[in-house]
């Protein structure tokens, strides 16, 4: 972890190009644009691409690559907390017994 890491401009440009390209892809693949429909999968695809973009911004633009372990661990724990919340909630809602009015 070198504190004052100076990322060369070329790297920034490469990352920007990657981000724009991925945006282009995710827009083309999307249903309202090209009608390309995978059902449930297109949510998954859109989010996979968004996660790749987010990781790119995180690692290079935000310098997470050169950040000390602690900040990285808290960043990951923030995402973990959201996953825990969502998965427990989805589990609860999925297993709820749906009753109907007896009258």
């Amino acid at each position, binding site marked *: 972890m070198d504190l004052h890491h100076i990322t060369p401009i070329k790297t920034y440009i490469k990352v920007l190009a990657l981000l724009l390209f991925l945006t282009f892809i995710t827009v083309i693949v999307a249903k309202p644009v090209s009608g390309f429909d995978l059902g449930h999968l297109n949510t998954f695809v859109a989010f996979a691409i968004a996660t790749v973009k987010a990781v790119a911004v995180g690692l290079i633009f935000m310098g997470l690559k050169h950040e000390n372990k*602690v900040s990285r661990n*808290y960043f990951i724990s923030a995402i973990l*907390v959201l996953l825990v919340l969502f998965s*427990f909630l989805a589990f*609860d809602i999925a297993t*709820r017994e749906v009753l109907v009015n007896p009258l």
Partner: protein
Amino acid sequence: MSDLLGKNYINCEKGLWSWLTTLDHKRIGIMYLIAIVFFAFLGAVFSLILRYELFSAGKDFLTALQYNKVMTYHGAIMTFMVLVPGIPAVLGNILLPLQIGAKDVAFPRLNLLSWYLLILGAAIAIISLFTTGVDTGWTFYAPYSTGSAQSGTIFVVLGAFVMGLASILTGLNFIATIHQLRAKGMTFMRMPLFVWGLYATSIIQIVATPVVGITLLLLVAERVLGVGVFDPKLGGDPILFQHFFWFYSHPVVYLMVLPGMGVISEVVTAFSKKVIFGYKAIVYASVAIAGVGFLVWGHHMFVSGQSDWAGVLFSFITMFVGIPTAVKIFNWMTTLYKGSIEFRTPLLFALGFLFVFAIGGLTGLFLATLSTDMHFHDTYFVVAHFHYTMVGGAVMAVFAGLFYWWPKICGRMYNELQGQIGFAFVFIGFNVTFFPQFILGAMGMPRRYFDYLPEFEHLHAVSTVGSTIVNTGMVILFVVLYRAWKYGEIAGDNPWNATTLEWQTTSPPPHENFTKEMKVTGGPYDYA
């Protein structure tokens, strides 16, 4: 302050303005102490009104609406304004830099901002007293809070949001301080256990508080814009509010008690002059409690319409969170073994903590087990349980910490006899107040009841008598501490000859905390 104590952080600058704009973590800690004692007094007044209304069945001097408001204010003030900031802000602010050998917390200006945010949040919440007040209970359950509750609810909710922000900033400050400003040689495994308690607490503050922040904002949006996220008439799900609320509010009860446990580790070690038993076990237990605490919130909702399978899952994980607490109690108990125990007031409070928190923890088993919780949920059993863990846990530990570190904070010693009298009042009064409530809960009296059936009457009478005793005890203790601040005799730098770093500087410490660079070679408690 006579000059007997020489130049220190209290008298190095004069005048209120120097206090209100101070960047010294110790002064900010004192300002937090003053604010929180005022809020605790306010909350206690509401609890007394509550208890005297419940002294006998039937309407005594409050109407049902007034009772609901008093009950809500007691809950909201005690949790958001006293227990959440409580130990971390008061003892944490004063002691953390001292215990790790630092000159100040990492972000002093942010520390002062946190204090002002707490005062601002408290002011916003207290405004609701003068409008219609709030009568939803401190849990603000939708759809009551989003629909038919009094309009004052928005003030208390926004106040709680601002105080949540203050709590985040304190947590952030402490994590940065613990990581960056430890003295040379103090590795993570050589930190005092009170610092570990604060670290586990700060993790919860950082990661859990934003969840309640956005939940409260959604609640305000629901009332103002009719957003329909929690209101069933607009398609929302009120149980989702409970999920989001308890996702924060369960880790926050661990946030309230973990620093208390840190204080107890320090006090038990210092007064039995013996190295803590199982230092690593307590450290891992603290972090485990903070971690697993995020997975168990559903045990507040076993009967709330949450699915049965989710209930089973939450009950199973809740059993995990019980184990580290039990381990900690055993560790403290074993520290006393073959020690040289001196029964001073701080140790009395620590032993009182062990007594009361053991009951609190064990009664948690009834509420974690699925089929017994079906009977006990939302009855006075739950009220007794969380008072045993919160008042017994956090408050008993606060007094243990205050009395233990009072010589360091103000350089003067408290009067031992008066301290022990105060402890006796608080300990006896507390048990007389809340033990009958376990029985009320078993008999099936629901909580938040303004009026109740005659057969519950004499237990409520006992509880009210107890509440008078415990509140008298609290007043006695604060008087004892105040008199010690003014007239106590000089305590010297290390009256308890403890081994942690804060005792190696003068008391009260100078503005810079330490005159020379502190070096740490061994563990925090090598008394051998």
